[in-house]
């Protein structure tokens, strides 16, 4: 694992519709070959951060107003979503966003258009995806919309893989999935990371699973990164344990009312 950053987010601020401040100081780094997790509750800014990196924010009338995002050392503020994918960074959207009227194979094919691949190459990529996810191979002709949630997540990841990415931005893969599927998805993440050297930035609410597979984690709260550490450190930290893992210690609710976690302003 070398230490060249693939993606470097430097103190960005993001605004929706010119008015709603969604991010107010997010910095993070994804090094080559790393699996980085981005933890946080609903509305903390995980998705916005990922969309800022993939330049999909514009499609939701959002924009990055401050800070710099660098991809392989280059500022991406002038690029559009298409360029980002072209450079090998693909986002797997939260809620999967399968093309519901396209069948499974067509869904996968759409991912390959970015690279001008020959028929044989496309076939090889398809076979690779089917090998990773044998379950969807049996449903090639089924409309994507009729597949189960777990299958859809597999299609979404498979579709991203068709573009032969070097970095995948994976947005809440566990959302609405059975534990067995969550485990399966993360096993694939691990395998792609180890075999193909694909880097990952995974946003998750399910910190337990995410930290088990990631090397580094960031905790994001109210649009700010409030904590950074190796997965081990985060798992041991009491804050994280209380917030995302539950338990930790017995909580006295009288005290909770007056309890505020320290939010360090980001340096």
């Amino acid at each position, binding site marked *: 694992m070398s230490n060249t950053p693939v993606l470097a987010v430097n103190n960005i601020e993001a605004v929706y519709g010119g008015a709603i401040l969604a991010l107010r100081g997010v910095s993070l780094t994804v090094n080559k070959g790393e699996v980085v997790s981005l933890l946080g509750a609903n509305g903390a800014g995980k998705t916005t951060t990922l969309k800022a990196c993939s330049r*999909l924010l514009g499609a939701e009338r959002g924009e990055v107003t401050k800070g710099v995002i660098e991809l392989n050392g280059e500022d991406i503020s002038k690029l559009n979503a298409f360029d*980002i994918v*072209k450079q090998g960074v*693909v986002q797997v*959207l939260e809620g999967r966003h399968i093309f519901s*009227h396209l069948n499974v194979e067509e869904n996968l094919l*759409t991912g390959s*258009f970015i690279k001008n691949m020959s028929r044989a190459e496309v076939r090889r990529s398809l076979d690779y995806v089917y090998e990773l996810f044998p379950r969807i191979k049996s449903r090639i002709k089924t409309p994507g919309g009729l597949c189960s949630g777990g299958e859809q997540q597999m299609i979404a990841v498979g579709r991203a893989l068709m573009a032969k990415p070097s970095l995948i931005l994976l947005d809440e893969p566990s959302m609405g999935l059975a534990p067995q599927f969550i485990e399966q998805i993360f096993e694939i993440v691990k395998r792609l990371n180890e075999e193909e050297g694909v880097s990952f930035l995974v946003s998750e609410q399910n910190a337990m699973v995410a930290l088990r597979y990631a090397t580094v984690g960031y905790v994001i709260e109210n649009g700010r990164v409030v904590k950074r550490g190796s997965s081990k450190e985060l798992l041991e930290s009491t804050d994280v344990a209380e917030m995302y893992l539950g338990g930790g210690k017995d909580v006295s609710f009288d005290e909770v009312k007056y309890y505020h976690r320290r939010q360090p302003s980001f340096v």
Partner: protein
Amino acid sequence: MEILASLVTAFADLFSLFGLEVFVGGMLSGIMYSLVAIGFVLVYKSSGVFNFAQGTMLLFAALTFVSLTERQVNFWVAFAITCVVMVIIGLIIERTVMRPLANQDLLSLFMATVGVNYFLEGLAQGTWDSAVHGVELGIPTDPVFVSEVIPWLDILVSKFDGFAAAVALGMVVGLYLFFQYTRTGLSLRAVSDDHMASQAVGIPLAKIWAIVWAVTGIICFIAGLIWADRLSVSFTLTWAVLKGLPVILIGGLTSIPGCLVGGLIIGASEKIGEIFFADVFGGQGIEHWWAYLTALVFILIRPTGIFGERDIERI
């Protein structure tokens, strides 16, 4: 009682050779609407917008072509020039109106096409003129006896309608193959399904829309030519084509083959209504609203049309 009696005679007349003739003739005349409907569907399918300016684009194309031929430009040269002009207009609409409004509310996009409609109307009149022009494409308009081919079928069919049907069928088949079997076609379907996801996998939205609008421009031209030959080129053209609306409601807003089927149904029902049931509804001229009534009844039974994509939702 009287109404009932006239209904009975109407139905009795319907099941005769004459009834069949009206039915077939109606279906073929409905193809004219299919030609327009294809343009509507193409834009709707890829961007979710109902293109109100379709009729004016059609008029603009026909007017450009006519004005060129009237200035002694060779038929095929005029044809080529108009094609180029329509592609450019399509691209300009996409670049200056649709693209800046991408990701906005669909209603804003629709209203923008209303604006485009009036702009093009003015541009057409300003560039050319507002007189009524005749077009003669040399398509034979005389009717033929089907019995010459199928001996027992002793009915008359217009050659012109047959020609229009062949053109429409050609376009539908061509577009269907394009959507089903090419990369661009698949990208188009992906875009119509989910804008966000298609951007996430790197489908260039702008390029796809540019293609759609360019193709729409050409389709408008072809439809415009055939309509112009039948009606002559004038402003009635912009409204005549609104009959494409019930057609796509019946066929399904997102289905190209649906345009053909919808056109056949609207055409047949229109003519049958006019000829056999007009008396029941108080006289001739019902065909103007009959088509919309047919569409209404259809929507009540099948809200997404015959081939329209039904929302797939998992529970």
